[in-house]
């Protein structure tokens, strides 16, 4: 999408913001480009200006000003989202909130904390180290907690602790007219009215800007044990996952890779693991519980026909196993140097996982596309990294077609187009099929809370 000159309203907003915020409003091409491009299917779409903000009050003031002029506002955290959530297809002002990076309060007794939206999740955990507590949502990217809340992010430990949906207790939100509200609170539960917190979690900045997040924290587990096991085929691996989930084992992570992914890992990591569907498992808890659960898991794996079971006896061996998992994306990229690939993100009921994967694999096998699979098996969420050359129109068309086909398969199985990456611009086209008449309810909500339509316009759905 090309967008060259600001509209009159945006220009007025820029003038007003420049007068108020001085050099913290930037119109430099490089800064705009940095806030208007992502690694995805999507072409870059630059904002007209980028505003660097430091506090809820500043955000409120700036939003009120943009509201007066009808200028689009696009919240920006670390820019690590992958569906174009931060792009500015209609121009407007990108609000860079990365400077709002203070941990405001840690309440160890209540096991919660309150942070500004720009805090990076890894930095929060660094900050918490001395308390014995940690924040469990673990995704590879250096994402901000505000952005993670806005996209309802999750990751490898969701099987144990849940996604941002389960972990956000309350929010401070700047509404589209600049009014500041608090949602939720510090009580562990509440039945007091509509759950506004969970309306803003996952709204991708289309209803307001999250400026503070109250999060649940957890005690660091006393012990952990990691196990890698390979199976003859995918159904055997998922049978093992289902058994482990039903037995209530202390699963902290249960990750799945397919044969192609394992071939890539062997080639890239210089290891010789079985080139078969593989699970990485981490069990955490008290030392006796972990020992018990690990033994039971190995039994379940063998009962499901595991060909190879490797339990890490010490911390170092465990790290070695998990490094292979964490480097999976690099291993994938090495399959086709120069190509970064785009990740799919469907999520299905676990019982449908083998069928879902088999159906799309059959489709992929009819093409030349390379697409290894890695996934959060405990959540029924997996990613195929589609390795295509975005400059090659035909390859791009094939990759798009596989992505669309995969989403159709997942929806037919009662699943969702996106388990954790969100909708942004990239998945908008699938929302009608996924939500049907409920999409209109989302539109009604959007119109009610943002009647002038300035908050991250054109994302999730068209109005």
């Amino acid at each position: 999408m090309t967008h060259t000159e600001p509209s009159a309203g945006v220009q007025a907003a820029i003038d007003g913001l420049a007068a108020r915020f001085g050099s913290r409003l930037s119109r430099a091409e490089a800064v705009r480009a940095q806030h208007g491009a992502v690694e995805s299917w999507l072409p870059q779409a630059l904002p007209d200006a980028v505003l660097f903000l430091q506090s809820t009050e500043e955000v409120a003031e700036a939003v009120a000003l943009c509201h007066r002029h009808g200028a689009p506002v696009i919240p920006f955290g670390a820019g690590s989202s992958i569906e174009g959530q931060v792009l500015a297809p209609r121009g407007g002002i990108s609000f860079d909130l990365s400077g709002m990076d203070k941990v405001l309060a840690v309440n160890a007794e209540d096991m919660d904390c309150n942070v500004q939206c720009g805090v990076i999740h890894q930095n929060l955990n660094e900050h918490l180290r001395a308390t014995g507590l940690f924040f469990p949502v673990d995704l590879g990217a250096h994402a901000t907690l505000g952005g993670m809340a806005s996209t309802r992010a999750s990751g490898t430990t969701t099987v144990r602790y849940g996604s941002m949906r389960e972990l956000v207790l309350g929010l401070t939100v700047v509404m589209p007219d600049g009014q500041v509200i608090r949602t939720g609170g510090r009580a562990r539960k509440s039945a007091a009215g509509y759950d506004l917190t969970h309306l803003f979690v996952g709204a991708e900045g289309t209803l307001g800007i999250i400026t503070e997040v109250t999060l649940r924290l957890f005690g660091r587990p006393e012990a952990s044990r990691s196990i890698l096991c390979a199976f003859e085929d995918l159904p055997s691996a998922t049978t093992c996952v289902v058994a482990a989930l039903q037995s209530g084992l202390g699963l902290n992570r249960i990750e799945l890779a397919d044969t192609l992914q394992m071939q890539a890992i062997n080639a890239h990591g210089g290891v010789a693991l079985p080139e078969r569907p593989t699970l990485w498992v981490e069990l955490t808890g008290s030392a006796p519980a972990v020992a018990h659960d690990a033994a039971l898991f190995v039994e379940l794996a063998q009962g499901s026909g595991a060909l190879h079971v490797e339990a890490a006896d010490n911390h170092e061996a465990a790290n070695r196993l998990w490094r292979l998992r964490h480097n999976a994306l690099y291993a994938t990229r090495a399959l086709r140097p120069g190509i970064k690939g785009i990740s799919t993100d469907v999520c299905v009921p676990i019982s449908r996982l083998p069928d879902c994967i088999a159906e799309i694999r059959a489709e992929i096998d009819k093409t030349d596309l390379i697409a290894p699979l890695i996934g959060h098996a405990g959540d029924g969420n997996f990613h195929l990294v589609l390795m295509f050359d975005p400059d090659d129109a035909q390859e791009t068309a094939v990759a798009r077609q596989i992505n669309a086909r995969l989403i159709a398969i997942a929806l037919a199985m009662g699943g969702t187009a996106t388990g954790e990456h969100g909708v942004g611009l990239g998945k908008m086209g699938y929302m009608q099929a996924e939500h049907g008449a409920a999409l209109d309810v989302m539109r009604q909500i959007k119109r009610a809370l943002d009647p002038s339509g300035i908050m991250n316009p054109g994302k999730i759905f068209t109005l």
Partner: protein
Amino acid sequence: MTAHDALSALLGDRFTTAQAHRAAHAQSETHVTGGLPDAVAYPETTAEVADLMRICAAHRLPVIGWGAGTSLEGHALALHGGVTVDFTRMDRVLDIRAEDMLVRVQPGITREALNRDLRATGLFFPVDPGANASLGGMAATRASGTTAVRYGTMRDAVLGLEVVLADGTVIRTGSAAPKSAAGYDLTALFVGSEGTLGLITELTLRLHGQPEAVSAAVCGFATMAQTVDCVIETIQSGLPMARIEFLDPAAVAACNAYSGQTLAETPLLLVEFHGTPASVAEQAARFGEIAQSHGSTGFRWAEQPEDRSALWKMRHAAYPACLAARPGATAIVTDVCVPISQLAQAVEETRADIAASGIPGPILGHVGDGNFHAILLIDPHSPEDRATAKALAARMATRALRLGGTVTGEHGIGIGKLGYMAQEHGAAWPVMGALKTALDPLNLLNPGKLVPPHDA
């Protein structure tokens, strides 16, 4: 055609204006009263609910959902007349998916009936508010109960819904996938909306494996502070308690009298652990150590199923036990929830306040969540009692908000707590009002509840 004729044509004798049916749906289990529906409908399918809603919308008739009638804040009372939709005939389990640990149910099924149907699967539905409530009602009020500390509330348990909107449109929210990042979380919006945004006609619920082993214990403490410190340390050490319940000395006395127990009348904790035999034994031992380090007395394990069930029966009978402590009394039940670090202070201040009031008010609570209830026992014929109790409840609500909490942890707003919404939510309350107006512009769904009144 009149609304009456249209609804009769739709539902036959399952639509009634008989006084007995209307009166039966104008009652609540607590002090909250008022409102008589003009008629009661007993639909059997989603399609009937949608048709009913369209007819009522065309005739501008209020529609009030009704499950088991166990809500405590007058949620289901027909303040402005209209049609009460009784879901008791929509009580089927539609689909059990054991591998996915999911179940799809109609809203009228009660949680006890659901768990009976699940028994053979090795799975169970954990949310346990005590009352044998309907699942639709539990979702509508974001209910929880004794097991929320381990398994969460209805917010965590509901994966998806089918909802009939104010214009009769049927939508589905959520999916059968364990998580999703696809757009607004409408499921979470309808859970806890108390029938003001739509009528829940189907629920997809998350299930859990029946624990292989269960153990329970009871122990007393000299002070409330010691009790809470014990709970905080237990939670921080990551011990996965399935339940941890608190009773104050007055509640223990009431339970002793009612259930024939002989527990020491001190602040008391009841705990339960779920897991494998080995993990339960280990957790129990560690809890015992923690409790002892906080000065616990009268520590007793209930390892036999019959001892355990006697303990929990006593806990679940605490409400009638408290009522029996003052014969002829009716109760005003409070429901504040505070950060756990503030719990000892909240309970101590509340106890002193109750003691000074002259009204009996045993306290019990879901201490792991920071949620507690005072059962304020009033003479239903005494306006003074009622005024005193209401003033006590109001001070408890203000106290909870001052301590960073909420006026209702699990009972919801209904009529009883509407007066605290502005105080609790400030500028966020009108946002709720804006959502209500957007989804129910004619204000037909359970009018007079939850959102700012139209003339405000």
